[in-house]
């Protein structure tokens, strides 16, 4: 019973509901997949950004430094200018410092007569961690603190990590629901063709042959639905990629062509969706049909 439809499966496993449901599922899976990949790449971009930021606090900036010749602030600034890996050190203006302290000390912190540290911001371009920097600055001006944005980076990592976990859970749930949909469709097809299958079984059809008929039909329908759903997700993904571009540090491509702006890893992974869906369709229908056939003598 090669390619002919002896079991009448074209009707029993209809080309309407199953592909539609699988298409919806694949659409969600495409979004979930994009979420996984996007949070991974955002995590990378943000972590680089955060860990590249140096904040150097110099307490008692106007006291003499360790040598006693210059003020601490000037000495630290001179040292920073010499250090490899430190780029663009900038003394924070009083206005900026005020802004930073407003939540704690009110709008005019610098006028309260407090002995506030001076704050220098810079970018860290060194290969290793900037810990050694803190030690050497501490020798020049005791109490100098170097904050490498590591805490911020760790928080970003935690956030994007859990976003990735969520996206992975979404993918798993979508896969499970897809399997359930295929099982239900296969059971409905079996119920509708119960007499036919019983007769063919009585004529000596192997369980494997009957299951193969169902599976090939189900796999084709599922694959078609998954291709449709994935393609339907492309414009949405392109739009999301466009929205996310500034955060990922890739910049917005001014010249349209949004579809081709999708990140390469995503474009490379999307074709896996229909393949995975087809796999789910085949395995689920095989298990469902073979289990059902065990009820026949």
């Amino acid at each position: 019973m090669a390619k002919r439809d002896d079991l009448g499966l074209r009707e029993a496993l209809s080309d309407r509901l199953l592909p539609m449901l699988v298409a919806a599922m694949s659409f969600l899976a495409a979004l979930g997949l994009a979420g996984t990949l996007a949070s991974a790449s955002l995590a990378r971009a943000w972590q680089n950004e955060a860990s590249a930021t140096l904040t150097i606090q110099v307490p008692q900036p106007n006291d003499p430094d360790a040598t006693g010749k210059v003020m601490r602030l000037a000495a630290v600034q001179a040292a920073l200018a010499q250090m490899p890996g430190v780029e663009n050190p900038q003394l924070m203006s009083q206005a900026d410092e005020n802004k930073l302290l407003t939540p704690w000390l009110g709008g005019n912190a610098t006028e309260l007569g407090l002995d506030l540290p001076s704050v220098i911001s810079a970018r860290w371009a060194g290969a290793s961690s900037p810990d050694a920097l803190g030690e050497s600055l501490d020798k020049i001006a005791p109490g100098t603190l170097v904050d490498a944005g590591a805490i911020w980076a760790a928080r970003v990592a935690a956030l994007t990590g859990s976003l990735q976990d969520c996206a992975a859970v979404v993918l798993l749930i979508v896969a499970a629901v897809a399997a359930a949909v295929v099982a239900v469709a296969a059971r409905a097809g079996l119920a509708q063709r119960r007499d036919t299958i019983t007769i063919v079984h009585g004529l000596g059809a192997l369980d494997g042959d009957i299951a193969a008929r169902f599976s090939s039909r189900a796999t084709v329908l599922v694959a078609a639905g998954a291709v449709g759903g994935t393609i339907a997700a492309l414009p949405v993904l392109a739009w999301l990629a466009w929205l996310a571009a500034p955060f990922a540090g890739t910049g917005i491509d001014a010249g349209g062509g949004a579809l081709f702006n999708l990140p390469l890893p995503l474009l490379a992974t999307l074709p896996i969706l229909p393949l995975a869906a087809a796999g789910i369709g085949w395995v689920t229908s095989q298990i469902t049909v073979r289990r059902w056939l065990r009820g026949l003598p």
Partner: protein
Amino acid sequence: MVRFEDVWLKYRTRPGTPGHDVLRGISFEIPDGGFRWLTGPSGAGKTSLLKLIYLAEHPARGFIEILGTRAAHISRREAALLRRRIGVVYQDFRLLPQLSAYDNVALPMRLAHRGETQINADVTEILRWVGLEDRLNARPDELSGGAQQRIAIARAVVARPKLLVADEPTGNLDDEQAQRLMLLITALNRLGTTVIIATHNMALVERYPAPRLRIEAGRMVQNG
């Protein structure tokens, strides 16, 4: 060879309910190439006995051997391959409603992966034998009861089975058609096919004398 030794059959209508014995201690033997009539009143258990032969039921106890194979403890695959060597004419025909007469008859050969050329030759020939060569493309529901029965007979014999099991095969046939069918079956039998036919048609039984298995209320009351 077909051999039954003290075979009992119970239908369990609902799980948990005891079910009653439909066949009680049936024993008989049909040698290879043998011919048997199976008779008995309605409800005696003829169809039930045939179901055991074509592996559609399992006995509650007893020993069954079909075509040299012990029916108990064979794998599902072995059972399927054994079924392919048994031609069955069901009392209720069991044609596939969505297939044409031709495709219904071709089904056993397709299951056995025969080539379409051979299928075409054999199916056309057998449909000519049963007088339906002009109804190849008709669906079962477009055919009379007698024509459906002849399709069912054609399907049972087309793959030249080693064993032919027919349950009331002449129930819907007129006398002439029944004669023609018996010609076909006796020809097959002469070529070596073992045959067992359940029937109420005593005139037919008289006309084609052969050993009889008679059952009443699930018990064998005549063997030979």
